[in-house]
């Protein structure tokens, strides 16, 4: 191994680094959160990434989406993410999926992954993802944002997951508070960092994961809290 991971080693041991290299992580949604997450996973050394989004960059993405540059407006998000990952860390294997996650393709997309990171932008789609992840027994690291607010949690196959956060699946439709509040770069980058940190912890079997707990962050008032979600 070259010097690439040298500065990781007081936090991530050599064995753990090798383990990350063998791990496969799916990033669903390559907008604000997903672009940052893909970048950080590649830098940290997660060896296999599945990058999923059916969307193209628009100029309204420039305010917060790391991978969106003026030059790339109009480009497919998974194409851009693959180029970026390869530019940062050529040893990472990328499988890109140029479609949105749907019930009919969710399990095929996730198959073979060790973990999935939820960077989606609709609540309905999050339930579809959770169902597929739990069926395949893959842990799910979820992040969601609106304005200066963000939340994150880790959902394992046995957990009640999103129904504790969003209510029953059939009560939910479409977007949440972000529809009126929009999204800004500082919240996106902050929550993406939490997601990547949780992802690495789960892959390495570390303690302190946000299982059955929800981290809430309000950057406007600088208030951060971890709240308990009941288990079974």
């Amino acid at each position, binding site marked *: 191994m070259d010097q690439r991971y040298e500065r990781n080693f007081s936090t991530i041991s050599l064995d753990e680094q090798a383990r990350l290299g063998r791990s496969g992580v799916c990033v669903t949604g390559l907008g*604000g959160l997903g672009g940052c997450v893909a970048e950080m996973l590649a830098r940290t050394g997660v060896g296999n990434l599945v990058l999923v989004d059916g969307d193209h960059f628009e100029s309204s993405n420039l305010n917060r989406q790391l991978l969106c540059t003026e030059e790339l407006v109009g480009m497919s998000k998974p194409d851009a993410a693959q180029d970026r990952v390869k530019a940062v860390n050529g040893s990472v294997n990328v499988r890109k999926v140029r479609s949105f996650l749907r019930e009919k393709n969710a399990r095929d997309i996730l198959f073979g992954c060790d973990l999935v990171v939820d*960077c989606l932008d609709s*609540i309905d789609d999050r339930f579809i993802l959770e169902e597929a992840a739990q069926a395949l027994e893959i842990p799910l690291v979820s992040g969601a944002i609106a304005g200066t607010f963000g939340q994150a949690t880790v959902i394992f196959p046995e957990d009640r997951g999103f129904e504790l956060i*969003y209510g029953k699946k059939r009560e939910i439709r479409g977007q949440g*508070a972000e529809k009126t*509040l929009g*999204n800004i770069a500082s919240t996106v980058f902050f929550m993406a960092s939490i997601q990547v940190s949780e992802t690495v912890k789960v892959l390495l079997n570390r303690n302190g994961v946000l299982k059955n707990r929800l981290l809430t962050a309000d950057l406007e008032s600088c208030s951060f809290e971890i709240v308990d*979600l*009941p288990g079974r």
Partner: protein
Amino acid sequence: MKMIEIDLKLFVTLAKYLPEENEPFRVAPGTTVEMVMKQLNIPENLVKLIFINGRREKPGYVLQQNDRLGLFPPVGGG
């Protein structure tokens, strides 16, 4: 009647329903979370998460002195 004092926090889009006098927020003994929401005209379907002292609770929870009550709307942006 002696009122109960609670710490009320309304997050994200719910912040606009926070009354001017809220530190502390006072309610009558026996008041539930649901009753507070009604009193503040917060539409029931806007609230997806209720936290009391860092634990998820149901709308029927009866508030106690010094409770920290947090209400959250659904947040789904990515």
